[in-house]
C-alpha cells in the first residue's frame, strides 16, 4: 500500500475526493509519522485530537459534497501564527505559556478552506535566525541529515523539517529575510514568499513589520500554489495588506515560458561562489533556455549593501515590536523586587534568548538619538535604492533567477556560525534584498550537492506577479526532476 503521507496536497485532495482514503485516515497516518519523527523536533505543540475532530468534519463534508478547497489536508503551522486556543510560543520562553484568544487571518483562511491543523512548528525564536538553533525548544533537525545532525535552515526550520519528513502535508512559514526560502532550499522543498501585502500579517507575531510575509512550504510548486491561494487576500485588519485580486495560481502552472526573459543578476555571482551552486545555476538557465526563454544578464548594483541594510532595519523594527513582551499582561513574568524597571529587566533578560537580545540591542542602538541618521535613516535610503534596482531590472526581464543560498545545510552547533553571528547572517545574502524590495520569490530544489544535500534556486518576480513565478517554477521543477525525501 502506498504511504499516503508521501502524496502531495494535490494528490491527497484527489484521493479524498475519490474516497481512496478518508481525512481521518490521513490525519492518523500523519500522527504516526509525528510519533516516529520526534527526533526531528519539528513540533513545539501537537494537537492531534483536535485535528482528528476536524478531519471527521472533513469526511462528513466529502460525504455530503460540501468539501472546500483544502478539505481534510493536515497542515503544520509555524508557531508564529496565533491560533485560537492553541498555544503560540514564537519559540520563546517569554511566550511559552501563551494561548491566543484569536486566530490569525492566514490560518483562519486555511481553516475556512477545510485544512486540518496537526500542531505548531518549531522556528528560530521570534523568527530570528537562519538555522532554527535559536529556538527555546531546541533546534529542529534536517531530515536529510546523515552522520551528523544538520540544521533545517531557518527561521521556518520546523516547517521545512516537518514537510520533508512527511509529518504534515504542507506547512505555513513566514519570511522576513529568507525564512521560508532558505529552509525550503536546505530541506529539498518548495516555498514561496509572496509580495509584501499579499497575505495579511494580522495575528502573526511580528518580527519586522515592513518585511514580514507569510507563505507556504510544500513538497512541490503546485502545492505551493494551492496553499498560497488560500492564504492570500486583502484584510482590513492589516493596513499594509493590499487590495488586489488574487488570481488562480494553479492556472499558471501549465503556462508557456517561450519569449519570457529571465534575468541573471551579475552581483549574485561573486568571485568564490561555490562552484557546485554556480553549475546548478547554469543548468537551470539552460533548462529555461531550452524551453524558449530568453536569458539576460542584469545588474542590481546595490546588492552589496542589502545585508547591512537588512541588519539595521529588521532589528530596529524588532526592538520596538518586541517591547510588548514585558511580563505585565501575558507570557512569562520574572520575579522582581517591587520596582517596575526590575520586573522589565528580569523578565526580558530571562525570557529572551541571546540572539533575540542581541537584535533588540542592535535595533535600540540604531534608533537612538545621535545614531538614527547614520544607521536607520541611511538604511531606509539604501532600501529605496535596492527597490529601485529591481524596478529598473524588471524593465528588461520578467523574472529573476538566482541561487537561494550560498551553502547547503550545515551541522547543528557549527563553530564558525556560532562564534561569529556575521557568518550566520551571510547565509541570507541572496534572500534579504527581496524582502527589502517587497517582491515575491520562491525557492525550489534543483539538485543535490556532492555530499547529497539539496540546493535551491530562487525565482524573483515583479510585485504581485506570483503567477509568472509559478509558471517558470513549474517548468524548472519538471526539468530538474528532483527526488524529494
Amino acid at each position: 500500500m502506498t504511504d499516503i503521507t508521501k502524496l502531495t496536497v494535490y494528490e491527497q485532495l484527489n484521493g479524498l475526493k475519490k474516497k481512496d482514503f478518508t481525512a481521518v485516515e490521513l490525519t492518523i497516518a500523519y500522527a504516526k509519522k509525528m510519533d516516529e519523527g520526534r527526533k526531528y523536533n519539528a513540533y513545539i505543540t501537537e494537537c492531534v485530537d483536535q485535528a482528528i475532530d476536524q478531519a471527521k468534519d472533513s469526511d462528513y463534508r466529502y460525504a455530503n459534497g460540501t468539501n472546500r478547497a483544502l478539505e481534510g489536508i493536515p497542515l503544520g503551522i509555524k508557531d508564529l501564527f496565533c491560533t485560537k486556543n492553541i498555544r503560540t510560543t514564537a519559540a520563546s520562553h517569554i511566550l511559552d505559556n501563551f494561548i491566543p484568544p484569536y486566530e490569525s487571518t492566514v490560518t483562519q483562511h486555511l481553516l475556512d478552506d477545510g485544512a486540518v491543523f496537526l500542531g505548531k512548528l518549531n522556528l528560530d525564536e521570534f523568527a530570528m535566525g537562519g538555522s532554527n538553533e535559536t529556538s527555546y525548544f531546541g533546534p529542529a533537525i534536517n531530515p536529510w541529515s546523515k552522520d551528523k545532525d544538520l540544521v533545517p535552515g531557518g527561521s521556518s526550520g520546523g516547517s521545512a523539517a516537518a514537510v520533508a519528513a512527511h509529518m504534515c502535508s504542507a506547512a505555513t512559514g513566514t519570511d522576513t529575510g529568507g525564512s521560508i526560502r532558505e529552509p525550503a532550499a536546505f530541506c529539498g522543498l518548495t516555498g514561496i514568499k509572496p509580495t509584501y501585502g499579499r497575505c495579511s500579517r494580522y495575528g502573526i507575531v511580528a518580527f519586522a513589520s515592513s518585511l514580514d510575509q507569510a507563505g507556504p512550504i510544500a513538497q512541490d510548486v503546485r502545492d505551493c500554489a494551492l496553499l498560497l491561494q488560500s492564504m492570500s487576500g486583502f484584510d482590513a485588519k492589516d493596513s499594509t495588506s493590499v487590495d488586489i485580486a488574487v488570481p488562480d495560481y494553479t492556472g499558471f502552472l501549465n503556462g508557456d515560458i517561450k519569449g519570457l526573459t529571465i534575468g541573471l543578476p551579475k552581483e549574485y555571482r561573486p568571485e568564490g561562489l561555490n562552484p557546485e551552486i554556480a553549475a546548478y545555476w547554469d543548468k537551470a538557465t539552460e533548462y529555461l533556455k531550452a524551453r524558449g526563454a530568453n536569458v539576460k544578464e542584469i545588474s542590481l548594483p546595490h546588492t552589496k549593501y542589502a545585508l547591512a541594510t537588512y541588519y539595521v532595519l529588521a532589528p530596529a523594527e524588532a526592538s520596538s515590536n518586541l517591547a510588548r513582551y514585558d511580563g505585565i499582561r501575558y507570557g512569562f513574568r520574572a520575579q522582581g523586587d517591587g520596582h517596575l524597571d526590575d520586573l522589565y529587566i528580569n523578565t526580558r533578560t530571562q525570557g529572551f534568548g541571546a540572539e533575540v537580545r542581541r537584535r533588540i540591542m542592535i535595533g535600540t542602538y540604531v534608533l537612538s538619538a545621535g545614531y538614527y541618521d547614520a544607521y536607520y535613516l541611511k538604511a531606509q535610503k539604501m532600501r529605496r535604492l535596492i527597490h529601485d534596482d529591481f524596478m529598473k531590472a524588471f524593465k528588461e526581464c520578467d523574472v529573476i533567477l538566482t541561487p537561494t543560498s550560498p551553502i547547503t545545510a550545515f551541522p547543528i552547533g557549527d563553530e564558525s556560525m556560532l562564534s561569529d553571528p556575521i557568518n550566520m547572517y551571510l547565509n541570507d545574502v541572496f534572500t534579504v534584498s527581496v524582502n527589502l524590495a517587497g517582491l515575491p520569490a520562491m525557492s525550489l530544489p534543483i539538485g543535490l550537492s556532492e555530499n547529497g544535500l539539496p540546493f535551491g534556486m530562487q525565482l524573483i518576480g515583479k510585485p504581485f506577479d506570483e503567477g509568472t513565478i509559478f509558471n517558470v517554477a513549474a517548468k524548472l521543477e519538471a526539468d530538474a526532476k528532483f527526488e524529494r525525501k
Partner: protein
Amino acid sequence: MTAYCIETAKGKWEVVVGLEIHCQIISKSKIFSGASTEFGDDPNVNVSFIDAGMPGMLPTLNKECVRQAVKTGLGLNAVINKYSEFSRKNYFYADMPTDYQITQFRYPIVGEGFISVDLSDGSTKNIGIERMHIEQDAGKSIHDLSPTKSFIDLNRAGVGLMEIVTKPDFRAPEEAGAFLRKLRSILRYLGTCDGNMDEGSMRCDVNVSVRPYGSDELRTRCEMKNVNSVKFVMQAIENEAKRQIEAYESGGTVEQETRQFDQTTGLTRMMRKKEFAHDYRYFPEPDLPPLVLTDEYINGIKAEMIELPDAKKQRFIETLGLTPYDAMVICENKETADFFEKAAAGHDAKKVANWMMSDFFAMLNKKHLDIQNSPVTPENLGALVELITKDVISGKIAKDVFEIMSETGENPEKIVEEKGLKQVTDTGAIEAIIDEVIKANPANVEAYKNGKTNLMGWFVGQTLKMSQGKANPSIVNKLVKQKLDN
C-alpha cells in the same frame, strides 16, 4: 494690553510661555481599534486585543478621528497637511501595553495656525499654533488601591488624542488663561473634544522661561506636565517665572528640566533633569501607511464647518448691535449663543442680550443649571422682551414675570394675562391716580411749586405704587409733570 512684567528690586523681567495641550478626540471608537471610548465604565471593559498589545495585533486608523483632527485644524486657522505619517515613540510603562505610543512626529496632520484671544482690557492677541498631531492615549495606572500592588485600567488606552503645540507667544499668565478658554470654546463648538480639564479630556503642559524685560533672547525653559485647570496654568506660570528669576538674580542658572505643579501649594518642584530625559527612538510606524488626504476631502470638511465663536461674535456686534463684551460672553459657548439667537429672533436683540447677561445668567447660577436645562425657553425670553418693548409691561413688572417664568416655565403672555399685570396706558385712569396723590399730599405740592422740583420723582413713584406697578412709567412721568406745573 498693558505689558505684564515681574519687577524685583534688581530689575524687570518678562515671561515667555508656550503650551502643549492634549485633547481627547470625541469619537465612538478608539483611534486604532474598534473598542468604545466610553468614559466611566468599569475598569478594562473597553479594551480590544489591539489596545492590550497582544501578539500579532495591528492598528487600523479610525477615519472619524482623522475627520475630527482636520475639523480642529481648520478651527485653529491652520494648514492641513495632505501628507502625514505615524511614528512610534518608544518607552516602557505599565499602562502603555505595546510599550510604544503611536503618534505623529516629523509629519503632523496639522501645521501652523493661530487663535485670536480676547484679553480683559478689550484687546485681542493672536497666539501662534506651531502644529497639531494625532496619537493614542495611554491607560491609567492606579497606585492607591493596595500598598504592594499597582493596578492598570486600559479603558483609556488607545483613545484618540490631538496634541496642539503653540508657539512661545504668551507673555502673561492671563494670555495663557484666555487662550485655553478660547481653545476649549472652539473645540466644543466643533464637537471634537469636550474640553473638560478636570476630567482629563484636555490636559496642558506648560513651558516657561524668563528674560530681562524688553530683551529678545530665549533662555532655558522648564516644562510643567499635566497642569489640570486654567487657574492652575496661570498660577504655574507666575510661580515658575518667579522661581527662575530668583535663580538668575541670586547668580544661579536655570536647568532644563521637567517640573511638577503642586495644586495645594501652587509651586513647582523638580521631577526629572534633562540628562534623564527619555530617548524615545522615534521611527516611522511600519504597521500604518502614510496618511494622504485629498483637496476634495479637506474641502468637504471645510464646507461643513459651522460658524466659530470669533465669527459669531463679530456678526452679533455688527448686525445685532451687541457690545463686544456681551458678544464675547454670549459666544463663548455654542449653547448660549444658540439660545441667544433663538431668543433674539424677531425681537430687540440688545435687550435680549441685557436680559441674558443679568437676570437670566443669575437665575441659571442660582439654580445650578446648564443653559440646556433652563426652565425659561429662548422663545419665552424673547416674548418677555417683546412685552417690554411694546409697553405691555414695565421693566419692573417684567422682573416679576421672569421670576414666575423661571419657576413654572410658563410663557410670559399667559402670566401677564392671568395675573392681570398688563400696564395701564389709559391716561384717564392714570390721571385719576395722580389726582388722588396730589390731593393727599398738599405739603409736597407746595414744596414742589416753591422750587423743590426733584420731588417730581417722588410723585411718580407714589403713582406707580398706587397702580401696583402697572401704570406705564413714561406716561406717568409726562402726566405728573403736566399736573404739577399747572
